[in-house]
């Protein structure tokens, strides 16, 4: 066995730690990506009975982006079990209370509901800020690519770039600049 093959085999059987930056990412789209790494579906040896899942560390979960009017339209349901115990929490209310909950629920929902799911969820770490405890960060060896590009704000672009950027629209001759 060559050295490269040996490393490949070692990497297949090892439990790697991945980091995922949730900044401006849709939690429901990124849950499908995170799920694959958590369950080990990206490995050639994957089998549902095979404990080959990896660990994923999600950072910046406070900065997630929902599409359109999802923040005020999407509701999360909970029932205490008592009569009249049903409650509906809007996505922005839930995010106010716990900024890690939306991404956690999205990943939980994206997986099939079996007994393994609770154990797979134990391998998911979510942090609302960029700050991660040192003992967790020292294990991380890989970064999962973001799905959506993080947009740049116009006031963060230097003024020279904005001024010299190629222009598409030309003002008519009798236009008064406002």
């Amino acid at each position, binding site marked *: 066995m060559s050295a490269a093959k040996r490393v490949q085999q070692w990497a297949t059987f090892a439990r790697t730690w991945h980091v995922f930056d949730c900044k401006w990412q849709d939690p429901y789209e990124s849950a499908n990506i995170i799920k694959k790494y958590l369950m080990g579906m990206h490995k050639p040896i994957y089998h549902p009975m095979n404990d080959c899942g990896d660990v994923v560390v999600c950072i910046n979960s406070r900065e*997630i982006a929902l599409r*359109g009017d999802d923040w005020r339209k999407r509701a999360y349901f909970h029932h205490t079990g008592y009569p009249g115990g049903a409650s509906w929490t809007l996505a922005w209310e839930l995010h106010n209370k716990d900024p890690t909950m939306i991404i956690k629920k999205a990943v939980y929902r994206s997986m099939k509901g079996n007994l393994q799911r609770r154990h797979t969820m134990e391998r998911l770490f979510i942090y609302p800020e960029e700050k991660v405890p040192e003992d967790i960060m020292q294990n991380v060896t890989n970064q999962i690519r973001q799905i959506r590009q993080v947009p740049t704000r116009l006031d963060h672009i230097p003024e020279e770039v904005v001024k010299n950027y190629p222009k598409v629209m030309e*003002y008519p001759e*009798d236009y008064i600049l406002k």
Partner: protein
Amino acid sequence: MAALVRAGFSLAKNAIFSTSIRSISTTKHLNIKEIRTSLEGSNIIIEGVTVPSPRTELLIRPEKLNTLIENKSTESIEKPPCYMCSLGLDVKHTDVLILSQFVRSDGCMLPRRITGLCRRQQKKIGKMVTMAQKAGLMINLTPAYSKKDPKKRWNYKKFNTYFDETTIFMKRIPKPLDRFKR
């Protein structure tokens, strides 16, 4: 009868107050006006001065791109498409460097007689400007009273939002629950 009377009335009105607009201009092309007020003794002088446009040199037009000219000569179109259609750019609502050109300094979308776009492009660009403003990507081009920083906005508005450009021309935006309808 009523229509006839109305037509006659509008004709007479036009004859009295002649409001015909001449579209012939004598000023030099690609110049914009600037209104200057100056105080000279006891007189306030307000004059309209034509100044060269700041973006003439940076302007991109399909005529300048060689590849598009060849395509244009082969096919004959009665009405030429507007500059945005002929450029064929795939503009997203995050492309603030392009969208900020269609906007006044208070972030308001310019009307079609100034932008010179076709109806469809005007609608598309206008909606994308709204999307960029709602996502808080052009906060330096907003009215003075608006909450500039998206983090300081109210309730659901303080969280990051992204938009889907394919919904611009949809009559009705489908809801997630529509999948379960019969």
